[in-house]
């Protein structure tokens, strides 16, 4: 079996030492991420994209080994497209989450993808995290990646029931900023994807706290 052959093989691949955040607000969900990709102590991409398309109404943020988050979300996206063709309906968010957790569980943690999945369907707005071993959490605010402690402290302080869209988005941005400044695995800019009843809105590099903290060459 493939997993037996993989046991004990260290994964020293391109990791997204990351801060990713999901926030539920009134009628929708905001997903925010930083844009730094690292290999060990070296930054390999200063402005990478950690948002992954699952369906028009479902998006995903990925932390962990870049290849794994990419492959898993791509596979699940295609799986959901087939489901959509079969049923002729807007896919439910839970279908995406179930597909992800089944895939990750099958690989017993060897596929290092830590995902935050959010979306809106006929039953409302949903937000879940999926861990590399296949467990899931469904909560009103979530964070994963190496910057999760910094981000979580901001979310714990700022989240309340009934946040408006813009309040939810700016809370998510602030949480990612805490990760950018306080976690060395996270950095550069903040990307946002907002999903509500109206549709999906993407804001690439909505703020650039890491880049802007760099001073001018004064000397």
């Amino acid at each position, binding site marked *: 079996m493939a997993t037996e052959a993989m046991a004990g093989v260290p994964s020293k691949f391109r990791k997204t030492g990351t801060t990713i955040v999901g926030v539920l607000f009134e009628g929708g969900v905001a997903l925010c991420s930083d844009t730094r990709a690292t290999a060990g102590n*070296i*930054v390999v991409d200063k402005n990478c994209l950690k948002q992954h398309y699952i369906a028009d109404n479902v998006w995903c943020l990925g932390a962990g080994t870049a290849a794994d988050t990419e492959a898993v979300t791509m596979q699940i996206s295609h799986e959901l497209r087939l489901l959509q063709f079969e049923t002729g309906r807007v896919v439910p968010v839970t279908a995406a989450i179930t597909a992800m957790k089944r895939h990750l569980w099958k690989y017993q943690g060897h596929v290092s993808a830590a995902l935050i999945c959010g979306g809106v369907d006929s039953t409302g707005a949903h937000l879940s995290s999926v861990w590399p071993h296949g467990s899931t959490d469904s909560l009103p605010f979530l964070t994963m990646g190496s910057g999760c402690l910094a981000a979580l402290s901001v979310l714990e302080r700022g989240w309340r029931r009934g946040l408006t869209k813009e309040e939810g988005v700016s809370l998510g941005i602030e949480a990612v900023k805490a990760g950018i400044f306080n*976690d060395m695995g996270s950095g550069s800019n903040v990307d946002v994807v907002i999903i509500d009843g109206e549709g999906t809105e993407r804001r690439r590099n909505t703020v650039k706290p890491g880049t802007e*903290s760099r001073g001018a060459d*004064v*000397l």
Partner: protein
Amino acid sequence: MSFSPYTDNGGTCVAIAGPDYVLIAGDTRMSDGYNILHRDIPKLSQFNENIVMGTAGMHADMIGLRKELGIRQQEYEYQARTKMGVAAFAQLLATTLYNRRFFPFYTFNILAGVDTKDNTCAIYTYDAVGCVLKAPYAASGAGESLVLPVLDAELKARDPVTAEEAKRVLTAAFRAADEREISTGDTLMIWTMRPGQEIVKETMPLRRD
């Protein structure tokens, strides 16, 4: 859990020398793993107006090493009734490091100084156990592998550059480490030493992410 006496607190030091100046610079971030412990810890230590040491590696060992060197320097200056010169200090640093051959100071040092006898400027680079190299420019620490190729391209096989040009090269090289190496950042300290003059101390903001 077994006792592990070493930590790597990250950061980078760079020095460039010319005929009548020597620059030494270091960032001020102190980190442990992915955590930033402090954003304003200098890596430069001044021993007298002619001797400055830049230290990357483990901060606790930098403090220990600096203390030991300070004591030995004072001892020397009392006995010789004269200020310590860079050449003597360079040798002192080498022997101090080698004394700990089998339990080394986890420090990677650069020494910058002005030789008052002939008004020349010098840089010495060290490994953790006291192997010395006299060099026209040097880098040490987490960003060493990013900075040195830039300095090679800009300074090798070139006539001595002016202090202003050297400072431009130094900041550009440091920028590379700042942008691409995660433990280097916050503030850059640049000290300029010239024979018979006070050390000029400047700072430049770096990335804080």
